[in-house]
Structure formats: structure tokens, C-alpha cells
């Protein structure tokens, strides 16, 4: 038995090393692809004639659907940002999904809502509407009050009421920049035949309605947990997703900003209530449908941030959110496993799905193996404590290097952050491994267990406390 220990430790260690090397290789390749995509989209954005798009009646109109469930504290700011968007023709449909707090009252006071009745077509399945309100102040705004049926149900309800060819699904806790829709619709306006979906980057803040700026640059929320989450977002949105977008295997249109062509939403039956989250699953479904039918299409992810969303500011809330993400990723990958390494699905099957399996689904497994193998190797005399420290430092600087590379891309395209925040972001990078990764590991592990237990609860995190 004692003789087996070093061998076991050795094999586990090698397995983790191989896994880590593949992840590093994947991230590096993605970053290289993202550099080109980032440059291209950045240059395009600068060349775009937004004034023309903004003033033209020929610019493609959009219906915005914003589900809200217990968003009393930030719903007014979020909806205000939506009705003040710069775009020639759009409507905002806020769906109050049976909130138990004062969400509806807040909206009623802020936007002077009056009840109305609208006969609408129930194209997609959704629970019954209690009342429809129109705003006396904002002619673009419609508020729907319905029984609680979850986010997918609320989105389907909003889509049923939407009038335009494109639907922008947003969150009721996100404050949007005034040019969010213009930026998002840019590529669709140029190629409405091919572009069926667009998603974009979202920034984080404890209190999105209080996010501050210096000129046109954003001040980061220096709360430690917020900073580390921002690193995650930077790497995911700026590095990975731009590469996915370039290869047309963008497998995750974020719930906070996803533009879809309405006929695609209807044809595919809308958002599904059978999954924990609706956004990732629907993106998988879109790819599955178009790849299997051989219809040409594009789903884009843009480099420009379009709004600020609320990030959890307690470890408990963060774990709850990330466990849900892990669960839904695993659910979607499992449900669409037929696409994995299937050449029929092109880049989605050959790159996107293997990426999800390796970097997301298997991550908690290998992290657990690493946690077991390193002490095991140390106790078997294969690793000295100095070696363990050196390995951890390599991982810390390696992770921080990828954050810096993503930051560099962001800098090259939008120069989003205030100059005085840059050194703070850079210097904080190496601490992520020690202070943040263990929490994420726990959350991912919990998410994987929840998946195995077939837990489908949303587990919405408690809103951050306001002063």
C-alpha cells in the first residue's frame, strides 16, 4: 500500500500537469485569435457612422425585454437607462415576474404607470399575465405583471408582446450605457441576413446605479471581490469570447445583453424552463439548429462593454451565483453532448464543445485532483514544500499574466478603465489565486454536485446592501 502512494501521487500530478498545459495552450491560442478580432471590431467601431444609424428611420428597430424579479433596489435605474437609450426606434417591455418585494410599486411610481389591456399573441409558452401597464411618461415603456414562472418564462412573455424583428434580452439589475443598443445593433444593421445574434461585454459594480466615470472612462469598484470577478469577466469576454465570435462558435450569449432575431426565437420555441439558466442553453440550441440544418448564420460577441451589472459582494452570494453557472454549463453540455467532436457541427462541435468540457465541466475535477495530488506527492517525498510554493507562485503569476493580456486587449480597443486604476488592476492580479480561486473552486465543485443531484433552482443571490 505504501509503495502505491508515490506512484498514485505521481500519476495524479502528471494528469493535472497535462490538464493545466492544455488549458494554457487553449487560452493562449484563443488570445492570439482574439487579438485580431479585437483589433478588427475596435477599428470598425471607430469607423462606424453612429450619427447616421441614430437618425435613420431605416435602422432596424428593436424590442427590449427586461425580466425583473425582486429588483426593487435597482429596477428604476435599470429601466431609466433603457428608456434613455440612443436608438431611433425601439420599445422596452419590462416583465415583473411575480416579484414579492416592491419592484412593481417602484416602477409604478417612477414611470407613472397606468393599467391597460393589450390583446397579444401567445406564440411562446408563458404563464398568465395579471396586468399590462403603459407609462404616462415614457411612451416606449410597457410593464407586464405576471405570475412567477422564472426568467425563461418572463422572457417568453416579453417576446410574445414584442413588435419588432429583433429582441434584446436584458436584465433588470443592469444599468446600460446610452449607446448600448447602437453598439449592439451595429453588426446586425450591416448584415441583417446573416447576423442572428449579438452579445457583448458587461462591467461589474457593487451598485451599478452608482458607478462613476472620469471623462469617458470608468472607475473600477475597488472592492476586492468585485476586482477578482472583474478579472474573470475580462478574461472571459475580451479574450475567450472574441475568439469564439471569430470562429462562430459563440456558445454563451449573456443574459444581461443578448440580441436575437425574433423569428429565430419563435422558431426554436423560445427560452426553455427545463434548465437552470436560459441564456447558455438557448445559445447552444441556436448553434445546434443552424449547424444541423446547414443554414448560414453568425452569432457575434462584441468587445465593447454595454452596461454595468451588479456583482455579488459577499462570498456566500458569489458561491451561489457561480455554482448556478457551473450547473447550467454542465446541464447544457450534457444535453447537447451529441455535438461534441461531431464534425457536422463545425467549429461548435470541434472547438467550442471540447473547450467547455475541458475548461468548464472538468475544471472542478482536476482542481480537486490537484488538491489531492500535491499534498500526497509532498507526503510521499516527491515534492518539497519549496516546490509546492514555487508551483503555486507559477500558477499565481500565470493567471495574472492572462489577466494582463486580456487587459491589454481591452486597452487596445476601448481603453475602458481610468488610468489611475490600471496599476491597481495589474498589481492585484497575482493575489487572485490565493484569495479568490479557492472560492470559485468551491462554487464550481458545488455546482457539479448540484448538477448530479439534478438541482434546478435559480438560487438568486441577495442584492448587495445599499447605504
Amino acid at each position, binding site marked *: 500500500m505504501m509503495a502505491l502512494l508515490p506512484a498514485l501521487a505521481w500519476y495524479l500530478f502528471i494528469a493535472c500537469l497535462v490538464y493545466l498545459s492544455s488549458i494554457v495552450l487553449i487560452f493562449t491560442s484563443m488570445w492570439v485569435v482574439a487579438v485580431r478580432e479585437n483589433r478588427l471590431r475596435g477599428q470598425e467601431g471607430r469607423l462606424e457612422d453612429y450619427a447616421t444609424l441614430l437618425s435613420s*428611420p431605416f435602422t432596424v428597430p428593436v424590442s427590449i425585454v427586461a425580466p425583473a424579479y425582486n429588483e426593487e433596489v435597482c429596477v428604476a435605474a435599470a429601466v431609466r437607462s433603457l428608456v434613455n437609450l440612443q436608438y431611433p426606434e425601439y420599445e422596452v417591455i419590462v416583465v415583473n415576474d411575480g416579484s414579492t418585494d416592491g419592484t412593481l410599486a417602484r416602477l409604478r411610481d417612477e414611470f407613472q404607470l397606468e393599467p391597460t389591456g393589450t390583446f397579444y399573441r401567445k406564440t411562446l409558452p408563458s404563464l398568465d399575465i395579471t396586468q399590462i401597464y403603459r407609462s404616462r411618461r415614457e411612451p416606449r415603456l410597457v410593464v407586464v405583471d405576471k405570475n412567477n414562472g422564472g426568467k425563461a418564462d418572463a422572457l417568453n412573455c416579453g417576446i410574445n408582446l414584442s413588435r419588432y424583428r429583433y429582441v434584446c434580452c436584458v436584465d433588470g439589475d443592469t444599468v446600460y450605457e446610452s449607446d448600448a443598443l447602437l453598439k449592439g445593433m451595429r453588426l446586425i444593421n450591416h448584415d441583417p441576413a446573416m447576423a442572428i445574434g449579438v452579445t457583448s461585454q458587461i462591467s461589474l459594480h457593487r451598485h451599478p446605479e452608482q458607478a462613476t466615470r472620469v471623462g469617458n472612462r470608468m472607475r473600477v469598484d475597488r472592492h476586492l471581490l468585485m476586482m477578482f470577478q472583474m478579472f474573470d469577466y475580462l478574461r472571459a469576454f475580451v479574450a475567450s469570447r472574441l475568439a469564439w465570435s471569430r470562429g462562430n462558435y459563440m456558445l454563451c450569449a449573456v443574459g444581461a445583453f443578448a440580441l436575437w432575431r425574433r423569428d429565430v426565437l419563435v422558431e426554436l420555441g423560445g427560452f426553455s424552463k427545463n434548465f437552470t439558466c436560459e441564456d447558455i442553453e438557448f445559445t447552444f440550441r441556436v448553434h445546434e439548429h443552424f449547424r444541423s440544418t446547414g443554414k448560414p448564420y453568425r452569432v457575434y460577441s462584441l468587445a465593447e462593454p454595454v452596461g454595468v451589472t451588479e456583482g455579488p459582494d459577499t462570498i456566500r452570494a458569489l458561491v451561489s451565483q457561480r455554482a448556478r453557472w457551473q450547473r447550467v454549463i454542465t446541464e447544457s453540455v450534457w444535453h447537447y453532448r451529441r455535438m461534441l467532436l461531431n464534425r457536422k457541427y463545425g467549429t461548435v462541435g470541434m472547438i467550442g464543445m471540447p473547450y467547455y468540457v475541458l475548461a468548464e465541466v472538468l475544471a472542478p475535477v482536476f482542481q480537486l485532483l490537484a488538491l489531492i495530488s500535491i499534498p500526497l506527492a509532498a507526503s510521499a517525498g516527491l515534492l518539497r514544500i519549496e516546490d509546492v510554493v514555487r508551483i503555486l507562485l507559477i500558477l499565481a503569476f500565470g493567471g495574472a499574466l492572462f489577466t494582463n493580456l486580456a487587459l491589454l486587449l481591452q486597452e*487596445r480597443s476601448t*481603453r475602458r478603465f481610468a488610468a489611475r486604476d490600471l496599476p491597481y488592476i495589474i498589481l492585484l492580479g497575482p493575489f487572485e489565486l490565493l484569495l479568490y480561486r479557492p472560492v470559485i473552486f468551491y462554487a464550481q465543485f458545488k455546482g457539479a454536485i448540484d448538477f448530479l443531484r439534478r438541482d434546478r433552482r435559480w438560487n438568486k443571490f441577495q442584492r448587495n446592501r445599499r447605504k
Partner: protein
Amino acid sequence: MPLGILTPLLVAAALLWALVGLFVLVDRARYDAHTTRLDRARKELARTNPSLEEHARDVARRIGPTAFQQLVLEGLPHDVETALARQVRARAGEDRLRRRADGSESGGVWRRIEALQVLASSAAADAYPALDTAVRSGNPQLAVAAIRMLTMLGGREAAVVLIKALRDGAYSRARLAAAIDRLPALPADLLTPLFESAEPPARFWGARLAGRFSAREWTPTVRRLLDDGSPLVRRGAVEALAAVGDAGDRELLLARLADATAFVRAHAARALAASADLSRAQSSDENVAAALVTLLADREWIVRASARRALRTIGKPAIAPLVRAMSHADRFAANSAAEVLYSSGAITELARQVLVAPTSAFEATPILQRYMAVAGAHLAQALLSGFTDSERVTLMRYLDARTATA
């Protein structure tokens, strides 16, 4: 275990992290310095100066086509932009710039766009063929840039390039149409290639642009297009006729309410609402409203929704036909009529009449009763929520009593 590699790996990771971090900071500092320099140049150029050319020459010595393009994108007064572009063009070499702009000299898309910008900003005649080639290049970046430059130039030649590209579908037609729509004026004769095209989308955009620019010279053609074989073209013609037609064209639009294609009927409803003139005889609008009311029972949802919005826009003249429509056999039509009556405020007004003088409101009462019968729970609730509790009780008691009497 070969752990000797750990130290070099650690040093490499830390070094790379530090180097990239440093590069980010230096890059931002350089960018800010560059922006400041450009700002200074812009301010220098914007100053009222009798010798603008001399000034531009001086600035052009410090900037190339790349920085020039950046200045233009961030905004320069027109005369300054032209003067500076001429100087940049002279310094960069006319022939070289032209070759680069039309793509005969390699240098990549972005270099080509920069060269095009210099040519376009200097208002050179040779800019138009190069911009035309760029729009038709099939390269989205090049086409976007060229369309923006043509919009900026805005003259007849620019319009010709844009319209021909629209006719040929050289790029997203909606985007090209948006660029044309932005032009300060559009001589009507320039639309000829669109109307003469064999392609329905070209004729569709021809009609829509004629409507946008109120090009009445094309009204007879637009009328003819109402009978075009393509539903897309008929839709465009319907929209355009609301803008360039006259009172007599209402009959033509009314005829389109019976079009075989749903979206043509929907657009005809919208066009009729847009052309409704409340200053004219009310009877005319009543006829339109009566025709629109029939669409509330259309087999297509899109047409019903469009008719509902159109009736809401028409307002008062639509009330009588809507009241009649509440007795429609199709319950969707009856419900939609109730909704429009509510949203136009007519039903609330009738309810107030009943409350003020219940005995003399003979006409109002049956209408209100009909409304309560066909509106459904939400609309009924919406009406009642506009009154106080006691008013609500009175109203309901009166309506019930009348029903019982009847």
C-alpha cells in the same frame, strides 16, 4: 521528478506578468500623450487664422494619414479638414495615395481606408471612383468606411455612388439607404436607377426614399407600384404614397387593405393612419376608420395589431366604427375595439358622463355595458382603476341596474 524546471518557469511567469503589465501602463501613457498632441493640433487648427493653409502645412508635417483619420473621426471643422487633407495628400504623394486608395498598391485594408479618408476629405474628384470600388469590395470594413465618407461628402456624386450601390445590392441595402437618408438633399432624378431596376428590393428602396425625400415627381410611379408583382415593392409604395400622395390616393391605399399579402395590408393600415388629416372632413376619416375596423378581424395577427395602432392614431373619427365593432362576432375584433376605445380615452369619458348625469346618459350606458362585456378582466379593471372606490360602486350599480331593466 524533474522539478529543476520550476524555478525558470516561475521567473518566466513573473517576468512575463511584469512585462505585459508595464506595457499596458506605457501604452496608455503613450496613447494619452498622442491624444493630447492631436487635441493640441485640433485646437491650433480651429483657431481663427487668416493663414489656414500655412497652419495646416505646419500640422501636416507632424501627422500622417493615420493621425489625420483619427482627427477626422473625432471631429474637425469642415474647412480645416479640407485644408489639412490637402496638405497631408501633398506630403504623402498624390499618386501613391491614389494607388493605395483604389487598392492597386498593397498595404492592407486600414492603410487603404486612411488613404480614402485623405482623398475624400480633400474633396478630390478622384475620390468617388475609389469610394465606389471600396463600397463594392465585399470587405465590410472598407465598405463601412466608404459609406461614412460618402455620407460626409454629401453631394450629387456621393448620392450617385450610394444609389447605384443600393440598386446593385453591393452592401446591406438598409445601411446604404440610411446613408442616403442622411444626405442633406436628394435630387429626384437620381432615384431613376432604383425605379428602373428589375430587382424588387431596388424598387422597394426607390419608393421608400421617394417618400422620405417627398419626391412628388415620382408620385405617378409610386401609384403604379401599388400593383407591382412583388409584395415588398407594394409595401414600399404604400408607405411612400402616404408621404407623396394626395387626398385622392386614399382610395388606392384603402384598396390595399385587401392585399393578398399580410404585411402589405398592415403597412396600408399604418399609411392610412399617417395620412389621416383631422383638419379635413371628419367623414373621410370615418370611412378610413370603418375600413380599418374590418382589419381587426383579419386572419393575420400582424394586420390586427397594425389596424389597432392605426385606429388609435386616427382618434375621434374612429370612435363610432369602434363602438359598432364591439358587437363584432369575432371576439378578438370586439376586444381590440374595446382596447382602442379605452386607450383613446373615449370609454373613460363616457363613464364620467354616466357618473355625472346617469339618467340622461342614454347613449353612453349601452356602450359601457358592451365594453364591460367584451373588454375582458384586464381592460375592465383598467377602466375602473381610473375612478375612486365610491365612483366605481356607483358606476357598477348603475350599469347592473340598466342591464336588469333591459
